[in-house]
């Protein structure tokens, strides 16, 4: 490899490595937040004070809780007071409540292909999305 091509390769590599940093720097200066896909969590109606579990638990284990509820209901027919529908009584917008966060970390949901969660943009909901249980 000639020193010329080597110089080009190295320069490109360095630039590529620096790119995200510069990107974050510039976008941070411009928009005040460096995260383009920053997750805006929909704050529910203030009249609902707390969630079905304490917030930390929901943040860590909401999927476990949902799975738990699912098993109980589907396999043993025990419909507890919490259900899949309980979420949407407070968090009205699926788009902002579920999808944004899950899209932000590229974890596809396929709950809504089968379960109804009122959303104005329902037709555009990812009916075909796969890859999660």
């Amino acid at each position, binding site marked *: 490899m000639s020193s010329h091509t080597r110089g080009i390769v190295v320069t490109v590599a360095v630039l590529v490595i620096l790119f995200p940093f510069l990107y974050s720097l510039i976008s941070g200066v411009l928009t005040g937040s460096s995260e383009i896909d920053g997750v805006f969590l929909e704050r529910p109606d203030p009249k609902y004070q707390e969630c079905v579990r304490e917030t930390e638990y929901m943040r860590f284990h909401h999927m476990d809780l949902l799975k738990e509820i699912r098993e109980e209901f589907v396999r*043993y027919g025990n*419909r507890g007071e919490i259900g899949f529908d309980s979420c949407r009584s407070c968090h009205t917008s699926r788009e902002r409540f579920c999808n944004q966060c899950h899209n932000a970390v590229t974890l596809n949901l396929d709950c809504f292909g089968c379960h109804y969660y009122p959303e104005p943009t329902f037709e555009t909901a990812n009916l075909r999305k796969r890859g999660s249980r």
Partner: protein
Amino acid sequence: MNRRKFLKKGGMVLSGTVCADGLLLLTSCNPSETTKENRLSRHKWGMVIDLNKCKPECTACMEACRQENNVAFHGDKRWDIHWIRKVGIQERHSENAGEKMIPMLCNHCENPPCAQVCPVQATYKRDDGIVIVDHHRCIGCRYCMIACPYNARFFNYKDDPDWPNKSYPKRSHGVAESCHFCAHLLDQGKRPACVDTCEKIGVKAIYFGDLKDPNSEVSQLIADTPLKRIRADLGTEPKVYYKGL
């Protein structure tokens, strides 16, 4: 030589981790799920269909089922799904015999072959005797459809856009399904959609009730009227009885 030694050792370690994975998976198995103690075991649901009352051209039960359970309909016989369907039969080699229309649905066998062969325990028998599919778990291998001797199980070959009953989920394409005696209604203390409709239109050809309760309508009928079950000779012990078959 050193490299080979190292590779061998690495292989040993790797295989060890693989075994660990296997162990982890095994421990997460729970084959005896339905033995869990729950309120379901108090009932055993059964159905009696009176063919003498059932009107040949009436399809109210099919429609009600479709509306209640969002059963997919594409207008193509190969892929249409009918949890309950009406089949016209008549005696072989005899001209005079008239045609009978028979509502057919999942027989909710006591010994369901579909549950026996399901590789992921997605199809299973609830403790109240209902054979039901956990659509979150089904991998769509369609072995249950092979095993079912009644053609009562169906597969979602494609998605159906329309969604009549928003309070009940649809099924994505790629999973098998069949009648579940409207278990979601039973759990709320209601009756299956077909039974309700049949009564509402004033025919009342379908009786539904608890087989464990001796003075329920169904138990009474079974006790004192000659009833038949489809292919009872297969030993699957169906829980759907027919009067006048």
